[in-house]
Structures are given as structure tokens and as C-alpha cells.
């Protein structure tokens, strides 16, 4: 008991599993408030600006007509319900899903520098989606696109994982290089498919998959990713103990009763499903899955039982705000949201890498 014991001022031996930080329920409450505030702003701000009170009035009125007496023109209700709410909802779903996947991937590779896009998973999903679009495939009805994206994401993830592990230990350098290289190749494939398809319309929608975008979201786009993200997060929360065990290392996890190979395979599938469902509607949006888990771990620690709900909320709030910025900065034009998240996330990544190198 020498040097380290002295630095934290010998905390009293209290029970419980909380850190001496902001209490966990308070963190969750604050994050939920942040999501609500971001959503309100996301619905209120746009070509027609609505007062926040009216936003809630319309939402409550829709929930039950007796709750609020309508005092607004009907067209505003249409704007809110048909245009803004689905978009904000999709932002929340995509943000939460990417963050949750980022956290799961980081546990999977035992490295806080993982993210669906940095590991090439999103680009794999893009290739799947573009293939469906270019060749007009519709093998599984409305599920064709997300399923193809899932297949692409899954193959990319498995490929990167085993490339990074080839020859023994998985180092950060190997991991990031395999991920980035695979991602580059896959986006080149996707671009090639689009450019050679010879349809100018497709080029436009392909841009959405490369840079990410949530413009023109309608209700029927929301359901599949919302279901995948909700279900996926729920399942991940259920396996938060095994996720923690992965952080302990492979052999330690096995000695603690975890079937590491089976669990890892299941995680591959689950993460690819969520990423596939997301990328099919939003395209590749990078760095969200890198930044959010890091912030959340600083707030509530790395125990997945506490970190997963928090990261889902933070990711949702973040992406709603990022999308708001993407459509406001040069309104009425929109910036692809992936550009904004990369502008924020790139430097964050470099900072994180430097900090880790120093520590």
C-alpha cells in the first residue's frame, strides 16, 4: 500500500457500486431531459419555426385530443407530424444505435478506439445497401435493404476482426489500420457500383450512404431501425455482465464461466444487425460510436449495466442536435450529417489516441 493508495484521499469503505461522482439516477435523468430538449428544438426549428409550447401542444393533442385544445393552423400539425417528428425520431434511433454499437464493439475488441465506421462495419453495410439499390433486388420485401446492409456489415466486421488478430495479439494499430483499410476498400466498391450504374438519381441517393443523411425521412423509414435498436439495446443490457467480462480478457472471461467464442459470434451478429438497420436508412455516420461511449464512461464508469442506457440517451440527444445543425447551418440547403460528425469526431479521435499514448 504505497504510492497509489495515497493519491485518492483514502475513501471510506462504503458499500454500493457507484462511483463518487454524479449519482447515476441523476445522470440518467439529466440525459433524458437533454433528449427531450433536443427533440423539442429539432421539431420546432426549420423552414417554419414553431414555439416549443406549440410543439408539445401538437404532440399531446395527437396523443389524446382531449389533452390540448388545438390553437394552431392544421398545416403546422402536418409539418410536425409528417416531416419533423419522424426525422427527429430517426435521429434519436440512429444516434442511440450507433453509440450502443460503438460501446459493444469497444468491449468486443477491448479497445476504446473502436467505432462502427472506423472498423469498416458501416461501409460494409453501405455496400450491401448499394447492391440492393443498383440491382433492384427485392428478395425480402421491405426488409431487403436492411438485410443486405446487415450481411455487408457482418462480413466486414468478421473480416476486420480476424485481420486485426492475425498472428496473435490485437494491437490498437493493427485494429485501426485493418478497419480503415477495409472501410476504404468497401467505400470504393460502393462508389464504383454507383458510378457505373448510370443513373443520375442514384448518384444522389448514394451520396447519402457515403456521407450520411437523414433528409426526407418519412414514418415508414423509422420502424425497422427503431425496432432493431430498441431490441438490440435491450439484449445488450441483458448481457451486460458478459460484456464486462470481455474487458477482463479472453482467458479470464473464460475462467469466469463465459463461452467467449459463442458470445463473440453472437455479438458480431447483433452489432451487424443494428448497424445494418441503421445504415440502410441513414448511411455511414462516423465517430458517434466512438465519442459517446467515451463521454459516458467518464460520467458513469465502464460497467455496461450502467453505461449502456446512458450511452443510448446521450447518442440520441447528440445526433438530434447534429442533424439540427446539419440542416440549419446553410439553410435551406443541408450538409450531410456525416461531415459534421467527422468534423467533431476526427479531432476527438486524435486527442484520445494521444492521451492513450501518453498514459
Amino acid at each position, binding site marked *: 500500500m504505497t504510492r*497509489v493508495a495515497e493519491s485518492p484521499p483514502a475513501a471510506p469503505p462504503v458499500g454500493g457500486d457507484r462511483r463518487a461522482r454524479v449519482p447515476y439516477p441523476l445522470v440518467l435523468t439529466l440525459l433524458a431531459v437533454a433528449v427531450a430538449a433536443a427533440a423539442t428544438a429539432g421539431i420546432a426549428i426549420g423552414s417554419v419555426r414553431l414555439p416549443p409550447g406549440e410543439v408539445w401542444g401538437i404532440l399531446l393533442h395527437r396523443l389524446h385530443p382531449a389533452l390540448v385544445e388545438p390553437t394552431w393552423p392544421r398545416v403546422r400539425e402536418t409539418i410536425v407530424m409528417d416531416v419533423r417528428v419522424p426525422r427527429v425520431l430517426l435521429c434519436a434511433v440512429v444516434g442511440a444505435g450507433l453509440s450502443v454499437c460503438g460501446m459493444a464493439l469497444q468491449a468486443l475488441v477491448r479497445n476504446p478506439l473502436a467505432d462502427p465506421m472506423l472498423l469498416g462495419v458501416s461501409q460494409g453495410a453501405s455496400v450491401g445497401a448499394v447492391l440492393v439499390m443498383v440491382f433492384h433486388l427485392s428478395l425480402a420485401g421491405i426488409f431487403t435493404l436492411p438485410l443486405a446492409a446487415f450481411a455487408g456489415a457482418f462480413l466486414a466486421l468478421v473480416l476486420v476482426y480476424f485481420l486485426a488478430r492475425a498472428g496473435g495479439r490485437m494491437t490498437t494499430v493493427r485494429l485501426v489500420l485493418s478497419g480503415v483499410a477495409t472501410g476504404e476498400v468497401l467505400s470504393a466498391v460502393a462508389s464504383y457500383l454507383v458510378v457505373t450504374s448510370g443513373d443520375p438519381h442514384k448518384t444522389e441517393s448514394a451520396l447519402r450512404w457515403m456521407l450520411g443523411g437523414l433528409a426526407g425521412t418519412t414514418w415508414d423509414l423509422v420502424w425497422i431501425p427503431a425496432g432493431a435498436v430498441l431490441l438490440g439495446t435491450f439484449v445488450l443490457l441483458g448481457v451486460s455482465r458478459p460484456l464486462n467480462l470481455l474487458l477482463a480478457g479472453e482467458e479470464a472471461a473464460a*475462467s469466469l464461466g463465459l463461452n467467449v467464442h459463442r458470445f463473440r459470434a453472437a455479438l458480431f451478429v447483433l452489432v451487424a444487425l443494428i448497424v445494418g438497420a441503421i445504415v440502410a436508412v441513414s448511411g455511414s455516420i462516423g465517430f458517434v460510436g466512438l465519442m459517446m461511449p467515451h463521454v459516458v464512461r467518464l460520467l458513469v464508469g465502464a460497467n455496461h449495466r450502467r453505461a449502456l442506457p446512458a450511452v443510448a440517451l446521450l447518442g440520441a440527444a447528440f445526433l438530434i442536435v447534429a442533424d439540427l445543425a446539419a440542416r440549419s447551418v446553410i439553410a435551406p440547403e443541408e450538409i450531410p450529417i456525416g461531415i459534421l460528425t467527422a468534423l467533431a469526431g476526427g479531432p476527438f479521435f486524435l486527442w484520445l489516441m494521444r492521451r492513450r499514448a501518453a498514459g
Partner: protein
Amino acid sequence: MSTMGTPAELHAEGIHVVVGGRSLVRDVSLRIAPGEVVALVGPNGAGKSTLLRTFYRAQRPTSGRVLLDGADIWRMTGRQLARRLAAVLQEAPAEFELTVYDVVAMGRSPYKRAFQGDDADDRDIVMSAPESLDVNHLAQAPFDRLSGGEKQRVLIARALAQRTGTMVLDEPTNHLDLRHQFDALRLVRRLGVTAVVALHDLNLAAAFCDRICVLNAGRVVAAGSPTKVLTPTLLAEVYQVDAEVTVHPCTGIPQVSVLPGGRSEGDGSTST
């Protein structure tokens, strides 16, 4: 003091481990009685860790069986084994912001189903495990900011939280200072569990273990009480050192002193 599980008999039966064409463990048989503490010693690369890995199912023996109270551990599920046998490894959690509490609480996972949280019993067990290792004031501290010795003690605490009757420890005294080396091994003794401990320090092995098993190049070259096993001849043969073994006048425990003169003559082959 924590109540551990019922000590089991651990029986390795003709274990061979071949990895990539190299025999790491050759025909090792070892029977450890319930509650017995056995030290596994030998030079680097002798196969100590590999043998231990077959005990906690990290390495499937190429041939041979590992039996716990007569039951083949490779026919159990990982969870079943983790409730009966705990391992202290040299592998430490990655650089994530886990607290000491989080790390020790991992020891409860063999008893938990999906979605099941820690109950009051778990919390008691988790908090009492570090107590015996002098780290419980660190419960809320981030694991990766601990010193090497503190980390090691937390990992032992995690194994204690598994409440097993058998423990496998791979160099548990690494990074520990003198006092904590003794504390850790004394604790293992006091628990009354069946234990196999890989150790480098022969004097620690002699002081705390019922039997010493010496591995060299994957084979058991000697096994028995410390007094029987630790002889200058064996040390010269296995470690290629000139050593003197004396018996401590008060404790009666054999003590090894390596003479600084260098290698003994005669069996000076440089095989490792």
C-alpha cells in the same frame, strides 16, 4: 472470513499438450487432495502456465483428462466449472474505466443469469473479498490506476468472490511486495481450498505449500514435500544453479540460497 466452497480433489491424468507441433506439457499426472496446496515450480518455459491453463479450460489437453472430484472438467459447462474452480491469471482488465468493485463483482457472474443484477448477498461477498486482501478502501477507485501489486490483489479478490472450493493461481505473487506475498499465500492456505500455485520463489513455495511439483521441459521431474524435493542436485539439474539448501532452525522449513558463483559443473548443457 469468507466461506469458500467445498474443497475438491483435482486430478490431472496423463496430460499432454502439443501446440503448433511443440510439446509443451508431456505426460503430466498430478493428484491433489481436497484442501491440499501444491506449488508448481520450474524454469521459464517449463510448461507451468500451460498446465494450469488446462485446469481452467483455457487450453484443451491434446490427450489426458482433468478431473474435479472425478468429473471431467471438459464435460462441464464453463459456468459449472467457474462455480467450482477459480483462476487468478496474469491477464488484467483492459484500460477501461472499471472500478475495483466492478472487477471484483465479475467473480459473481458464474452465478448470474441474463438481466440479473447484484443482490445484497453479492454486494456483501464482493465487499468482503477485498477486505481480506487489504484493498477494500479502493472499492470505488479506477482499476487501471492501481499499482501492480494492488491490481494483483484485486484479481485474487475476484477469484475469492467466486466462492469456489478449488483455486488455480498463476504466479499470484508477481508484483507483490514482501508483506503482500506472504499475506496472499497465507490467505490461500487459510481458506482451506484445494490450490495449485505456480511460483517462482522456491522459498515461498516451501513455506506455504504442502507439496512442490517441479516441472522441467514439460515433464514432472520431482514431486513431494518441500524437504524431499528441494535438493541441491535437483536445483542444479533443473535450474542449472549452484544452490545450498538449509533447514530453518525455528520453522523447520527448507530454505534455498543460490550461490553467486555461477553454474555448477558437470551437467552444463544449455538446454532450456
